[in-house]
């Protein structure tokens, strides 16, 4: 799998991570599935981190929004409606790791959906550092997903 995105889309993810610091930010990646397991990102869709409401959905594990995020089913559906109105699909999600490397945690893996890209940006002392992307394989293990810079449209 590989993911194409533009420099300004990357900047939007960095910015969101820095704005949310020291909490985790989160959002949906809207775009298109292309042939040969490629994806194209068209729009980043920022979502408010709803971790405080995670108990209602059985996800709360006692951590705070500095270490966790949740996109609720309602927020997911809202993002999906917006995507569809533009002829796009949800192709993945992004979140930040405040003062933590951009490597998926066991909690990320246990909660991951297949097919989707999971982009992670590390934010150190309020400054966005490293952006990575991952997808689940058939054994539900995360594999690094290559991403490449697409031309601005």
């Amino acid at each position, binding site marked *: 799998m590989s993911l194409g995105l533009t420099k300004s889309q990357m900047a939007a993810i960095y910015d969101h991570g820095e704005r949310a610091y020291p909490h985790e930010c989160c959002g949906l990646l809207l775009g298109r599935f292309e042939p040969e397991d490629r994806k194209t990102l068209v729009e980043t869709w920022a979502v408010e981190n709803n971790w405080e409401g*995670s108990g209602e959905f059985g*996800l709360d594990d006692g951590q705070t929004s500095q270490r966790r995020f949740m996109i609720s089913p309602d927020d997911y559906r809202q993002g999906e409606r917006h995507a569809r109105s533009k002829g796009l699909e949800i192709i993945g999600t992004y979140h930040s790791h405040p003062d933590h490397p951009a490597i998926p*945690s066991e909690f990320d893996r246990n909660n991951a959906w297949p097919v989707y890209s999971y982009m992670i940006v590390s934010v150190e002392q309020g400054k966005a550092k490293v952006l990575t992307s991952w997808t689940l394989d058939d054994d*539900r293990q995360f594999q690094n997903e290559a991403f490449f810079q697409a031309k601005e449209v």
Partner: protein
Amino acid sequence: MTVKVLIPGPLRRYTANLESLELEGSSISEILADLTGRYGDLKKHLYNEDGKLRNFVNVYVNDEDIRDLNQQETSVQASDVISIVPSIAGGSSCA
């Protein structure tokens, strides 16, 4: 009895790209069993190692979360529409 079930985007790869299916059953557990019986590769994404429905998998009967009904024993009627809707969660360090 068959009931209409809406499949979320990330699982359609496992259902021949179908967005909705007519599945057999009179309760959510029977319907999900029919789903994973037809599309076996879905099972590990819907259920954890202990055979429990994963927390980030939300099942609605029309607009009601089955957590507010009778969980997987919630009974359904032919006129109901079942939706499987993702929550997306994650984080950084382990607890």
